[in-house]
């Protein structure tokens, strides 16, 4: 372990080689864990026809940080798979919405727990599972259900991804990750679900062995590329003001 470092020097290097048509998981729930710098690099990198998986396409708030919605605006996205694909208030409009309404991008709207479990299933070699979420709703129309012990469940399939873009607090050179507080959210399961896991790291990358094995949140064997986030203004470090 750790003979070779997984650290790369820049965000651009970190996203190099992501292919057109890739399915990409974007970590984060609200601000914590959102890979703003890697997303910005992907906007520059320009991969096309992406399938973007994340909790949301990005809200209507300003100032905006790089998100799936910006990739949509940049013409890089074929489809999104999210638990939010519209604005909570009818008066708000997501940047994503006009593209969706014009049919320029497709969307799959998934209950958040189902999204999490489909990612986890992909990372666990479980191709499909049953869940009670969504039964009896429009989402279940025409889909396969099954009654188990007297209750109706919906069949859901694993959601494997080609790439995960994540942000965490600490990492060592072997790729072991630690998230801080609510930053953990989708991070560990997106790492499990993805073939290429790329992480922007807030603290300087630690030498292998600096993280106690009991305190690792994502084991390094799941992680391929790490990049340390330089101080602002060379990188995106959102402030409290932007997220209120």
């Amino acid at each position, binding site marked *: 372990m750790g003979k070779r470092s997984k650290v790369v020097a820049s965000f651009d290097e970190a996203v190099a080689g992501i292919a057109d048509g890739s399915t990409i998981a974007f970590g984060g729930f609200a601000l*914590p864990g959102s890979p703003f710098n890697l997303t910005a690099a992907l906007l520059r990198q320009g991969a096309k026809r992406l399938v973007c998986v994340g909790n949301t396409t990005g809200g209507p708030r300003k100032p905006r940080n790089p998100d799936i919605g910006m990739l949509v605006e940049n013409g890089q996205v074929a489809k999104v798979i999210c638990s*939010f694909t*519209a604005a909570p208030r009818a008066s708000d409009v997501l940047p994503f919405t006009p593209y969706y309404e014009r049919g320029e991008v497709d969307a799959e709207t998934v209950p958040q*727990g189902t999204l*999490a479990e489909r990612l986890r299933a992909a990372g666990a070699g479980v191709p499909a599972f049953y869940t009670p*979420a969504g039964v*009896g709703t429009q989402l279940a129309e025409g889909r396969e259900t099954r009654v188990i012990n007297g209750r109706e469940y919906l069949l859901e399939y694993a959601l494997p991804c080609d790439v995960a873009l994540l942000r965490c607090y600490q990492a060592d050179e072997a790729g072991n990750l630690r998230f*801080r507080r*609510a930053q953990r959210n989708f991070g560990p399961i997106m790492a499990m679900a993805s073939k290429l896991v790329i992480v922007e790291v807030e603290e300087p990358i630690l030498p292998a062995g600096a993280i106690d094995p009991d305190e690792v949140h994502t084991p390094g064997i799941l992680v391929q590329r790490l990049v340390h986030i330089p101080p602002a203004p060379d990188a995106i470090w959102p402030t409290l003001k932007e*997220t209120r």
Partner: protein
Amino acid sequence: MPWSRPQMAERLAREFQDGWIVNLGVGMPTLITDVDMGEKEITFHAENGVIGFGPVAAEGHEDIHLVDASRRFVTLPPGAAIVDHADSFALIRSGRIDVTVLGTYEAAANRDFANWKVKGAKGGVIGGAMDLAACAKNVFLMMEHRTRDGTSRMLAECSLPVTARGRVNRVITELGLFEPTGAAFKVLDVAPGVTIDDIRAATAAPVEA
């Protein structure tokens, strides 16, 4: 006089039982973290894996890594724990959440509700609501009784696509606290100065006083 939103939060929280694990939806339900629970031990669970969170942080004491499911900068009292999204929804689907309090567009006497898709919208605003609605032991709704144009949100059956069927236990509005019974909304409490006739006039479903 109808209840204010903090009064609605306070009244609804009186329905919580000691020891409950409580999940709060975005918007109005977040007011419940401000309610004094007295002797009751209540644990707040957020979809993003924050278990046992406390009140919103005082200004200047926010932790940029620590938000609840409504993006509020919250605090962590002793005994709190963090899990990932899969484990957080594992707690939800396995029935560990005693009550979820959700905002909604519509509540129905048949115990359905609709809070994820407005008319004509492409896409939806599901978040964790479908998992919570299907699996929490109790589903409480918190909402305005009518839309701004005066249309009732309290219906016999939902007009919008439902979030879950037959799962609602309580609905609180500015006018009162209700239990949907299948056929009607049963009145459990009424805001001061509000009459049953006021409620009937504002409700597009049978009301059982």
